[in-house]
């Protein structure tokens, strides 16, 4: 067991030195102790001092290990030192031992009766050990300086690393703190967008729409969204309200699904057709949008829906094919010079029916009322021809590309522009009432989104019908 106190060391060393002096004095005194016995005592004392020194080292080591303030780095650093002592201590002790034992042997060679050869060996050992010791001491400053520099660099690097880690952590905290309002802002903005659309659908058009077009829980969704947007922003509440509004049972998704039966024929499915129509309607020019609305909502004829000078005789011939009974009645005139130009001219005038009756009515139409009815349908077809020309192939392709980021059901799959244009026809009377109403509501909603400069494609990307 190691000693409790290092005070044993000076006592042991003191005893060793005192013994050494006493033995030396006894040997020098005439008639003293026998030389061999003295040397044995001397070696014993040196060993005793050495044992005391090791005892002291062990005590220091245990004391350091049991000290709570000792860090793992310090223990690791101690392991790299010889006997966990300051560098050079072991060399010094060895040199001391050689000196303490060897020098008396040399001094008392004659007294001890040692031969010259042994004295030479001892001299060589002492000289070698001392030479090594002092030689090492001479080189030590460089080594120490290098070690200190290395230690200083290591310490500096550790300090820098700690500084960097601290700075990185602080930066992460700062970024997180800075992003928090942005994330909240994004989430709030998204919910606000969908809430505005839902309000328009539920509270604006809802009363006029057949039962089932607007989901039953829509009012509760609106309340939830409004609560989430009031007071301090709570991301989880905002996310829950947004999920409710943008889910399959949300108002917009339900409306798109309800309109789907009249929007078939587009690759990707009817929902993709609805998405395409909404997106294209939003990108049209003001005049193009007026034509779109008039077409889908089957509005009465309005000459201002056409751009000045835009209706050609070729348009009239193309539109005539869409009104078969009218085309059949006029079939005999089709190849006469100026027929298409005259038809265009009469159809675009307010008194067109009377002109038609006067010029071509006899024998072809039963009454002016029949002509009036046919002309109404012909004008609608003309509007359709113009509206279809508003939807260019490029616009369809670009919109399909934009919708490729929407949920799979809303993605048009390489749509045929002509198929998309056909969707612009007024909803047939045979279509389900729910689908007709949903289509009209979608058109009105597109108009509202145009007025508020809100891109429906961005909304569509966020819903999952």
């Amino acid at each position, binding site marked *: 067991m190691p000693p409790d106190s290092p005070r044993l060391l000076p006592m042991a060393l003191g005893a060793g030195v005192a013994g050494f002096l006493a033995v030396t004095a006894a040997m020098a005194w005439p008639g003293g102790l026998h030389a061999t016995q003295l040397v044995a005592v001397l070696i014993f004392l040196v060993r005793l001092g050495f044992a005391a020194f090791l005892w002291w080292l062990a005590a220091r080591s245990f004391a350091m290990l049991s000290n709570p303030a000792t860090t793992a780095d310090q223990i690791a650093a101690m392991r790299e030192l010889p006997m966990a002592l300051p560098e050079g201590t072991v060399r010094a002790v060895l040199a001391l031992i050689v000196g303490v034992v060897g020098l008396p042997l040399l001094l008392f060679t004659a007294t001890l009766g040692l031969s010259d050869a042994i004295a030479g060996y001892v001299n060589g050992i002492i000289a070698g050990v001392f030479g090594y010791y002092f030689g090492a001491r001479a080189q030590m400053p460089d080594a120490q300086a290098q070690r200190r520099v290395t230690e200083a660099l290591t310490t500096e690097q550790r300090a820098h690393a700690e500084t960097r880690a601290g700075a990185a952590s602080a930066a992460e905290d700062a970024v997180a703190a800075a992003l928090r309002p942005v994330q909240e802002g994004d989430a709030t903005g998204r919910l606000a967008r969908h809430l505005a659309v839902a309000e328009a659908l539920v509270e604006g058009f809802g009363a006029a729409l057949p039962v089932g077009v607007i989901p039953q829980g829509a009012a509760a969704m609106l309340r939830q969204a409004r609560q989430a947007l009031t007071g301090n922003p709570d991301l989880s509440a905002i996310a829950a309200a947004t999920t409710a509004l943008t889910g399959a049972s949300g108002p917009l998704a339900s409306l798109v699904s309800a309109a789907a039966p009249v929007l078939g024929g587009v690759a990707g499915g009817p929902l993709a057709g609805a998405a395409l129509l909404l997106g294209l309607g939003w990108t049209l020019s003001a005049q193009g949008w007026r034509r779109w609305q008039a077409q889908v909502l089957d509005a009465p004829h309005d*000459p201002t829906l*056409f*751009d*000045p*000078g*835009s*209706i*050609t*005789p*070729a348009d009239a*011939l193309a539109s005539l094919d869409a009104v078969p009974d009218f085309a059949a009645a006029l079939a005999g005139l089709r*190849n006469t*010079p*100026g027929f*298409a*130009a*005259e038809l*265009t*001219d*009469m*159809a*675009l*005038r307010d008194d067109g029916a009377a002109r038609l009756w006067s010029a071509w009515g006899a024998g072809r139409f039963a009454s002016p009322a029949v002509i009036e009815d046919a002309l109404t349908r012909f004008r609608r077809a003309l509007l359709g021809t113009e509206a279809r020309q508003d939807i260019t192939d490029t616009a369809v392709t670009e919109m399909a590309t934009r919708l490729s980021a929407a949920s799979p059901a809303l993605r048009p799959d390489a749509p045929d522009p002509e198929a998309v244009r056909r969707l612009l026809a007024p909803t047939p009377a045979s279509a389900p009432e729910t689908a007709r109403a949903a289509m009209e509501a979608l058109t009105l909603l597109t108009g509202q989104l145009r007025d508020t400069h809100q891109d429906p494609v961005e909304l569509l990307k966020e819903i999952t019908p």
Partner: protein
Amino acid sequence: MNRHLWLLLGAMGCAPVAAVLDPPLAQLNRWNHALPAEIAAEPVSSPCDAANPACRRLHGLRAAACMEQAMAARAPRAACPGLAARPMLDCATAGYEQARAGDASAVLAANHAQALICLGWLSAPDEAARLSRAALSAAASAGPDRAPLLTLRARELGEAR
């Protein structure tokens, strides 16, 4: 005072003198202050040498006046007029053809193409096909802002007739 009087008299006598010496120039002088309807109603003085710059100008003015009359007869939003405007379109196409001889103006070419297309829709199929080709040729010389639409409409005429 006497000098000013002579100048006034000289100016008053200039037009009759020019009408005798150079009738196209005199007509051009009158048309510069006439209404389109008046120009459309009056033929270009004959003979009118094509090498005379005043003659080309006269044909251009009359073509523009006839075209304006024809287009004014269109129904609202229509691209071309009905049969009632055929004489005006005949006048316009003939005038533009004369005016474009020696004048590579893109505006004249575009207006010529427009007149040919509208006339084609009022013509029998064979004549319409010929006018369609002529319109395509004129549209090719029109400016880049009008050429595409005119070319499209000239093709529509050719395909429909």
